[in-house]
C-alpha cells in the first residue's frame, strides 16, 4: 500500500551543481511514500532531465534564477510539476531525433526529452504568466 497522498515541494537556484540535491529530494520523497525502487529511479531520472534542460537552456545557469519542483502522489500516480521563469521553450518546434541521427551528428545532447517521454506516461509543457511549466505523470507500483 502507498502512504497517504503526499505533496512535496523543493526549490533551488539554477545551477547544475544542484541536480544531485534535486535527485535526492525526489528519491527520498518517493521512497518514503512506499513507491517501488524501479519506478522511483525512473522518475528521478525524468525529473533530472527536465531540470537539466531548464537550468542549462532556459536559465543559462543563472544563479539568480530559481527552479521549483512539486511532487504529488494520488491514487497510484505520481504527478510532477517543474516551474521556472527562464526563456520559453519552443515545444512545438521540438522534433525527436533518432539515435542513429545523433550518432551521425556526434551530438552530445538531445536525448533528455526522449528519455522523459519514454519513462513517463504523460508529459506536457505550457508557458503561462512568464512561467515554464512541465507536467509529468507516471503510474507507479507500491513496494520494494
Amino acid at each position, binding site marked *: 500500500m502507498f502512504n497517504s497522498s503526499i505533496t512535496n515541494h523543493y526549490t533551488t537556484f539554477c545551477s*547544475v*551543481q544542484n*541536480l*544531485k540535491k534535486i*535527485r535526492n529530494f525526489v528519491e527520498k520523497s518517493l521512497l518514503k511514500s512506499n513507491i517501488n525502487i*524501479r519506478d522511483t*529511479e*525512473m522518475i528521478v*531520472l525524468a525529473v*533530472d*532531465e527536465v531540470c*537539466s534542460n531548464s*537550468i*542549462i537552456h532556459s536559465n543559462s545557469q543563472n544563479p539568480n534564477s530559481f527552479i521549483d519542483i512539486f511532487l504529488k502522489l494520488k491514487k497510484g500516480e505520481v504527478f510532477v510539476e517543474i516551474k521556472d521563469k527562464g526563456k520559453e521553450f519552443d515545444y512545438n518546434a521540438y522534433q525527436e531525433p533518432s*539515435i542513429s541521427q*545523433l*550518432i*551521425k551528428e*556526434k*551530438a*552530445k*545532447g*538531445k*536525448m*533528455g526529452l*526522449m*528519455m522523459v517521454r*519514454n*519513462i513517463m506516461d504523460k508529459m506536457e509543457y505550457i508557458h503561462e504568466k512568464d512561467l515554464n511549466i512541465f507536467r509529468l505523470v507516471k503510474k507507479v507500483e507500491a513496494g520494494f
Partner: protein
Amino acid sequence: MIISTLKENIFYIISIDGDLDASSALQLDTAIKQALELNEKSIVINCKKLNYVSSSGLGVFISYLAEFEKDNIYFALLHVKDKILNTLNILGLTKLLHIIEKLPNV
C-alpha cells in the same frame, strides 16, 4: 564524480566514481578526448562505481561512437550495474554500446 585512468595491457581504462550527470559529463568527455589524443585503440569505461547516469553522460558515449567505428577503436563499458543498464535500456542503448563483465583476453 571522480575520474581516474589506468593502462592495463592494451586497454586504456577510464574509471568513473559517482554520478555522471549534466554537472560532470564534461569530465568524462575530456578523459575520452585525452585517450584519443594518446592514440589509444582500446578504451574501456569501468562503471563499477558509477551510481547514476543521465542523458548528458550517455550523450558523451554516443558522440564518440562514429569516431570509434571509423578509426577501428575498441570501446566497451565494464561492470555495469543493473540500475545503469535500466537507464541504457530506455533508449535501447544496450544494443549500441558494447557491455562486458571482464576485460577480454589479449
